[in-house]
C-alpha cells in the first residue's frame, strides 16, 4: 500500500462498502467489518437502512458499534426483537432481505466463501475457523450479497478449501441449478478495490481500484489470475463526513 492520503486502506474499504447500501434497503448485517460499514451508511446517506442481525433484532439502530452479533444495544434500539428461529425462517428464508452483508476468511474466483477450515482435510485442518453461523443461508436467500474482506493471496484463493457459503459455485448457471433464490454476491469490497462478478461468466472481476492502488498491486494480492475490467474506475475517496462518522464509531 502506497497511499499517502489522510485515510487508511481499511477506512477506504469500509466507506466503499457503506456506499453500496441505500436508504430503502433491508440489510442482514454480519458482525465486524459489515456491521461497521452498515452503521456508517445509516449515519450518512442511508438513514432509512433497515438493519437486521441474526440475533433477532429487526430494524435496529445501535447508537454505538455492537461488540457482538447479540449485543444488548441491538435489542434496546430495535423495532422489535424476535427469536432466532423466526429471524431465519420468517425474515431471511423467504427472500425479504435485500442485501446480505458478509465477511470472509477465504473467498475464491466465484465468490464462494470459506469460514470453516483452512487446509484440505476437514477432519485434520491446518486452521479451524469459527464455522458457518448464519452465512450459508444469508448467501443463499438474500436478494444479493455484498462481501467485505481484506485482500491477500491467503484470503483470495483460486478455490476455497471448504465451501461454507455458495457464491457463484463453479460459474454461470450454478446458483440456478442449485435452486438458490437470491442473486448471490454482486460486489466484493476489499482494502484495494472492488470486484464484481462478470455478467456472463460470474467470475470476480476488478472493476474499481482505490486511489493510490495499482491494478498490479491488486493482482499480486489475488490467488488467481485476476480478470480486470476494460477500464477499471478509481474508487471515490471517503469524504469528511464519512470519515468522521467512521472514526467516531471505531474510536480511531
Amino acid at each position, binding site marked *: 500500500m502506497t497511499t499517502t492520503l489522510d485515510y487508511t486502506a481499511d477506512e477506504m474499504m469500509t466507506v466503499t462498502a457503506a456506499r453500496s447500501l441505500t436508504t430503502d434497503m433491508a440489510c442482514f448485517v454480519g*458482525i465486524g467489518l459489515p456491521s461497521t460499514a452498515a452503521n456508517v451508511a445509516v449515519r450518512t446517506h442511508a438513514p432509512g437502512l433497515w438493519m437486521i442481525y*441474526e*440475533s*433477532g*433484532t429487526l430494524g435496529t439502530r445501535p447508537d454505538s458499534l455492537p*461488540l*457482538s*452479533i*447479540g*449485543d*444488548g444495544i*441491538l*435489542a434496546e434500539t430495535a423495532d*422489535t*426483537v424476535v*427469536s*432466532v*428461529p423466526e429471524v*431465519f*425462517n420468517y425474515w*431471511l*428464508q423467504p427472500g425479504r432481505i435485500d442485501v446480505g452483508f458478509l465477511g470472509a476468511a477465504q473467498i475464491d474466483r466465484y465468490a464462494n466463501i470459506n469460514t*470453516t477450515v483452512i487446509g484440505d482435510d*476437514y477432519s*485434520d*485442518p491446518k*486452521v*479451524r*475457523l*469459527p*464455522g*458457518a*453461523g*448464519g*452465512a*450459508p*443461508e444469508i448467501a*443463499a*436467500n438474500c436478494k444479493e450479497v455484498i462481501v467485505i474482506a481484506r485482500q491477500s493471496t491467503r484470503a483470495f484463493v483460486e478455490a476455497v478449501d*471448504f*465451501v*461454507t*457459503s*455458495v457464491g457463484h*459455485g463453479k460459474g454461470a448457471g*450454478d446458483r440456478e441449478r*442449485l*435452486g*438458490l*433464490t437470491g442473486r448471490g454476491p454482486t460486489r466484493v469490497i476489499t482494502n484495494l478495490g472492488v470486484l464484481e462478478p462478470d455478467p456472463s461468466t460470474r467470475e470476480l472481476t476488478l472493476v474499481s481500484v482505490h486511489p493510490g492502488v495499482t491494478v498490479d498491486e491488486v493482482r499480486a494480492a489475488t490467488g488467481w489470475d485476476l480478470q480486470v475490467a476494460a477500464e477499471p474506475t478509481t474508487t471515490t475517496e471517503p469524504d469528511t463526513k464519512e470519515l468522521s462518522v467512521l472514526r467516531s464509531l471505531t474510536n480511531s
Partner: protein
Amino acid sequence: MIVPLDEGIREFVHDGDTVALEGFTHLIPVAAGHEIIRQGLGDLTLVRMTPDVVYDQMIGAGCARKLIFSWGGNPGVGSLHRFRDAIQNGWPVPLEIEEHSHAGMANRYVAGASGVPFAILRGYTGTDLIAQTSQIATVTCPFTGEELTAVPAINPDVAIVHAQRADRAGNVQLWGITGVQKEVVLASRRTLVTVEEVVDHLEPVPGQVLLPSRVVTAVAEAPGGSRPSYAHGYYARSNQAYQDWDTISRDREEFQRWLRTEVHGTTHTAREG
C-alpha cells in the same frame, strides 16, 4: 423446584448426557458451565449454536466428547483456542464435531420442541457442510415436487439456560435477545434454569419469553450467572474478560492455572451465591 446450583447440576446432568447450554450471545449460563467443570462431568455431547468462552472452558477442562454447533468463536475477539486444540490436537481429549448452519440448528431445535422428527428449510444447498454429516438430508414437497433440505430434530437430555427472573413456583421470565431459549427448553427432556433472582411476582416485560414452570425441571438462583457475558437489565458484558480469555486460552498451562484458581477455587463462593 428451586435448588442450589450445585445440587441442580448433580441431580440433572450426568456423564455421557447430551447437554445444551444455550444463549444466543446473551444470558449465557456461565455459572452452570463452571459448576459442570467443578463436578468433573465428562463424556458430554455439548450442543449449542454459538459455543463461545464457556464452552471453550468446558472443552478445555475435558468435559466434552462431542460438540454439535454452528459457530464457534470468541465473539468480537477471535478464535476459541481450547476448541481448536481439542479438534486439531485432541487435547485434553479428542473432540468429535457435528457442524451445522445457524438456520439448520435453529430448525433442529424447532423440530425438537414441536415433537416431530425433522424440519425443512432452504439451507446448506451447495455447501461442503452436507458431506461432513449424515444429519443433513433432502425431502421432496408432495405438492410442488420441489426438493428442500431436511435436518433432524434435536432433543437434548438436558437444557441449561440463564434467565433474568423466576417466581417461587418456578415460572421463568427472560427478555432482550431471547435466541433459541424457548425452543431448547421445549426440545429437552430436562431443563435447569439459572436466574439472576427469584421474585414473588413476575411483572410482565415487553418482549419477554415466559417459560411456564411445567416445562422447567429446576431453577437455581445464580446472580451474575452470565458474567462475563451480560444479562439485559442487570449488567453489561465485560469486553475485557473476553479479550483476556484470548490470552489465557492460547496456552495450556495458563489455561490450567486459570481453571484451578477461577473455577475450582470458587466452589464455596458459587454455593453461597
